[in-house]
């Protein structure tokens, strides 16, 4: 499990954590591809802004969703993220630069409690 300071992103709502515990990333914009290949505890980087990204994040028990490239999630997407307790972030970074940033800034996490409730033994 890794830990990440989310400072190159902005939380989509006020009470979203500034740090995320996660286990790897997936970058994709095809929803059924994410359903097939995302793994529990990953951060998902996408360009979609509609509420279905939260539905997929819930199904796959993802650690967080980051909307890249300066796009703005729909108000309904933000509302759904709050309701489902999925940490949602926005960033002006392009997906590749964001993934690079994540890869070079994540830290080993000592605790295993995350927003997605991921535990090491699963």
């Amino acid at each position, binding site marked *: 499990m890794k830990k990440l300071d989310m400072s190159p992103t902005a939380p989509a709502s006020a009470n979203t954590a500034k740090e995320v515990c996660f286990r790897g990333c997936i970058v994709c914009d095809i*929803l*059924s591809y994410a*359903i*097939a290949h995302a793994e529990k505890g990953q951060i998902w980087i*996408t360009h979609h802004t*509609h*509420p279905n990204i939260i539905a997929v994040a819930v*199904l796959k028990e993802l650690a967080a969703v980051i909307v890249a490239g300066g796009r703005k999630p729909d108000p309904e997407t933000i509302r759904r993220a709050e309701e489902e307790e999925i940490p949602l972030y926005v960033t002006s970074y392009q997906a590749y630069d964001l993934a690079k940033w994540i890869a070079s800034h994540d830290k080993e996490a000592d605790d295993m409690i995350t927003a997605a409730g991921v535990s090491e033994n699963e």
Partner: protein
Amino acid sequence: MSAPLCKKEFFVQEFDFEHAGKAASDMRKLLMDYGFDQQIVRRLAIAAYEAEMNMVIHGFGGTLIMEINFEYIELVAKDNGPGISDLKLAMQEGFSTASDEIREIGFGAGMGLPNIKRCVNFLGIETKPGQGTVVTMRVDLGPDAI
């Protein structure tokens, strides 16, 4: 066959992307509240979501029905849409008739039915062009399912 222990219906609106996924999500919450095994709930939720999205996008909307039985949980996605003319082709990963508009919002990769197939123990599709589609999915409940 004996009567189901529990039966729930969820309605699905055509092209309503604001509420799309709600039937699968409500069903998932219900199964979690009942205390079913997490892995079983995960598989059913994915199958339900893909079947729901297919009714939203391709099937003119429809109904998702969940039945809990002793040995398995069954999901039936039923619509009165255009039906599927070549089922073998539709089952192939990558085949999709989705419009460009639908692809732009991330659907239409032709992966939904293959995703369902991977998640369930039984998948049966009854369809005729012009007469709608009924997708029946079952996930077996082992001895530790609840």
